Every structure is written in structure tokens, then in C-alpha cells.
């Protein structure tokens, strides 16, 4: 069962979260006590020893070597306890159990891709079964990102050209937000995701469903939202960062180099895979060319979906 969080911490929803919280709360309480001592003694001294006469010069107080030593030794002991404790929890956090279920994570500007061992994939939404250790093997396709789920108390940088990982065991079914915490460009704060913790049966069903064939338009629509396309492209004709995409198929488009082209299958395909090739007049060449990794089937589905938009 997950713990209720405090006013300081969100709910603790992973097996390690409670260990982290205990440590956090211990340091917080000790700090608060010491801080109160600092403030109370300051205020007391300021009032008690306020200047009563301009002529008064206080005597020099005797300094006690023992007291000085105690001030040094006691905090040292205290911090060493905290260090040791923090180190042990850190090792737990960093070492996935050997029986972990592995999911591959690919971070790109500005979304998360997840690939499951059965071949299923998902974007932005990470499906995991409850009560089972999950290891995420992560890498980045462009710049440094960082994978953070507050409720699980886990975070690790996702870097290009090297695999890093985090692990967690969700203790309760629910939905927990994924944040990117390493500044990665314009849409950094929109690079969100969701961990959907489900029961083992639901998870297995979901994996099965993923391997079934969806109709192309439906699959395309799902991909469109999964890849956060709607952040930049409206489907109701309004202007966002990129041009709106409804009613697009078959019309003639003008580009910023003065050329024109009919929006056919090939144009749509090219605009997904290589967005800088033809940039619609009046819009910045801002789309990141990270969609080349989509499979042919996925691109076909997206094109089918775009054609269906009125």
C-alpha cells in the first residue's frame, strides 16, 4: 500500500519511496529543530543584550575550547549518520532487482517513447503492472533529458549515446505523471508523460491489444496524440506553432521558398519524415526531424488519419 504524502512530499507510490521519505523527514525534522534553535537564540540575544548605553563596552567573553570542539564533533557525527543512511538508500535506488521487467525508453524533443519486450510500443503513456519491479533502460535521441516520477521518488538523466536506467515497483494502481527535468529546449515543460499502473491482467490484455491490428485512421489518431502533434498543429483550423492540418489533403500549398505543391500522399509523408524540406509560407521551420524513426505502417496510419480530417 502506498503511503500518504505530507505537505512536503507527494504520495509515496513505489517500494523505495518510503525509504526515501523516512530519510527526508528525518533530515527535515533535525534541520527544523536546529533552525529553531538558531532563530530563538538569535532573537533572545538581540533582546536580552540590546544596547542600553552608548558608553557601555562589553567584556570579552571567554572562549571555551571544549564548546568549540563539541560544535564541530556533534554535527560531524550527525552528518555521517545521514550520509550513511543516504548512501544505503541510494544503492537500493540504483540497483534494479534481477527479476525486473525491462522496458526500453527513448527520449526525444519532446516526448517519451516506450518499447516493451513483446514488441509493443507506446508514446507518452508508460503501461506497467502493479507490484512488479520494472527496469527502464533509457537513452536519448538528441539532447540530455531526465526521467522523473515524483510519486516513485526516482529520477535519472537520459543521455545520448549511453544507456542509463531507473527502476521502480509501483505499489498501487493509478496514474502518475512523468516529467522531464533536464532543460531540453522550447517544449521542455510540455515533455510530460503518464505512468499508467494497472493490474497484471490488464497489462497483459493491453500488450495483446497492442499487437492486434487497429484500423489505420484509428491508429493514426492515437499516434497523433501520443506524439503530442496537437501541441503545434491544430485540427480545427487555428494557428499554433505549425500550420493546422485539417482539410489539407488535395489542396495546393505555398512554401516559404515561393514554390507550391499539391498536398498528396507523398507530400504528407515527406512532411512527417523530413519536415524541413517544404516549409509552409508564414510558419517557422521549427519541427524537429525526429519522426523518421516511425515505421512505414505508422506513417501510413498517420497519413490516413490526416486525410480523414475535414
Amino acid at each position, binding site marked *: 500500500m502506498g503511503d500518504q504524502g505530507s505537505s512536503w512530499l507527494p504520495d509515496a507510490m513505489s517500494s523505495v519511496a518510503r525509504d526515501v521519505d523516512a530519510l527526508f523527514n528525518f533530515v527535515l525534522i533535525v534541520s527544523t529543530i536546529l533552525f529553531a534553535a538558531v532563530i530563538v537564540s538569535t532573537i533572545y540575544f538581540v533582546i536580552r543584550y540590546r544596547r542600553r548605553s552608548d558608553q557601555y563596552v562589553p567584556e570579552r567573553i571567554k572562549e571555551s575550547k571544549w564548546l568549540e570542539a563539541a560544535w564541530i564533533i556533534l554535527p560531524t557525527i550527525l552528518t555521517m549518520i545521514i550520509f550513511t543512511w543516504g548512501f544505503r538508500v541510494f544503492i537500493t535506488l*540504483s*540497483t*534494479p532487482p534481477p527479476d525486473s521487467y*525491462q522496458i526500453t525508453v527513448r527520449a526525444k524533443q519532446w516526448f517519451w517513447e516506450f518499447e516493451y519486450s513483446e514488441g509493443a510500443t507506446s508514446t507518452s503513456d508508460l503501461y506497467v503492472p502493479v507490484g512488479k519491479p520494472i527496469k527502464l533502460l533509457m537513452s536519448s535521441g538528441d539532447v540530455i533529458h531526465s526521467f522523473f516520477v515524483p510519486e516513485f521518488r526516482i529520477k*535519472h538523466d537520459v543521455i545520448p*549515446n*549511453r544507456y*542509463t*536506467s531507473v527502476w521502480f515497483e509501483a505499489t498501487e494502481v493509478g496514474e502518475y505523471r512523468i516529467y522531464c527535468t533536464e532543460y531540453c529546449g522550447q517544449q521542455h515543460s510540455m515533455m510530460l508523460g503518464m505512468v499508467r499502473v494497472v493490474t497484471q491482467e490488464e497489462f497483459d490484455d493491453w500488450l495483446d491489444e497492442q499487437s492486434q491490428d487497429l484500423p489505420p485512421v484509428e491508429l493514426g489518431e492515437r499516434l497523433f496524440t501520443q506524439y503530442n502533434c496537437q501541441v503545434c498543429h491544430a485540427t480545427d483550423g487555428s494557428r499554433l506553432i505549425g500550420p493546422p492540418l485539417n482539410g489539407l489533403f488535395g489542396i495546393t500549398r505555398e512554401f516559404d521558398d515561393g514554390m507550391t505543391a499539391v498536398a498528396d500522399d507523398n507530400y504528407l509523408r515527406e512532411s512527417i519524415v523530413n519536415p524541413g524540406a517544404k516549409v509552409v509560407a508564414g510558419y517557422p521551420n521549427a519541427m524537429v526531424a525526429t519522426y523518421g524513426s516511425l515505421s512505414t505502417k505508422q506513417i501510413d496510419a498517420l497519413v490516413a488519419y490526416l486525410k480523414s480530417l475535414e
Partner: protein
Amino acid sequence: MAHAVHHITPKKTLIQVFIALIALTVLTVVTSRMDLGAYNILLALFIAFCKAMFVILIFMALRHDSRINAAVFALGSVIVVVFLLFTLIDTVFRGDLPNTVEGTIMEQEAADEAMRMRDPSREELDAGPGE
């Protein structure tokens, strides 16, 4: 007078040091052509260190300079060592816990490629990460 305090290094000493430096240069070239394994680099660095000390102590006259200048130089060198060692504590031990993989993805792909070249039958070998 102020300048009377300054130490004047005798010409003879300067010449001796210069000859020693040339000799050490020859020595470092000669030893580098012998195969001493890991000791090659240690020896080369030791010789370079000796040469540097000659230059610092005699040419730069730190031996007769005020101690604070020697302290400044020593402190700077210590900080360089700190920079080097503490960075190496990371880079040499990168991937000591399973949350970071030691090698880069490029290296793994190159290794996998090399294996596939040797054994074309193992098509299923993936560039993906090992467990």
C-alpha cells in the same frame, strides 16, 4: 638596497641545468621506445616531472624565491591534481552500478557489428543493450 637581496643564479648552474634537461629529453625518447608496459607512461611522466622541477627551481629560481610564491605554485598544482583525480573517479568507474551502462551505444554497436562480421549466422544479434 632592494635588489641586493635578489638571488643571482651563477651561469655555471644554468649551463649544468640546461645540459641535464637535454639529457633527460634524450632519456625520455629512448625509454619510450622500449616496451615497459604500463611503466612507460609512468616513467615518461616522472622524467617530465624532473625536467619541470629543474626549470621551476633553477630557471625560475623558485628555490631562492619567497616561500609564498612556492606556496602559490604548489596550491595551483594541487588543484590541477584534484581536477584530474576527481574527474577520473567518475570516468574510470563509469557504470559501477547498474543504473548506468559503462560503454557508449556507439561502442556497443561497433562491437556487435564486429561480431556479426565474424559470424554472419547470428542475424538476431541486436545492437540493443545487454542485460
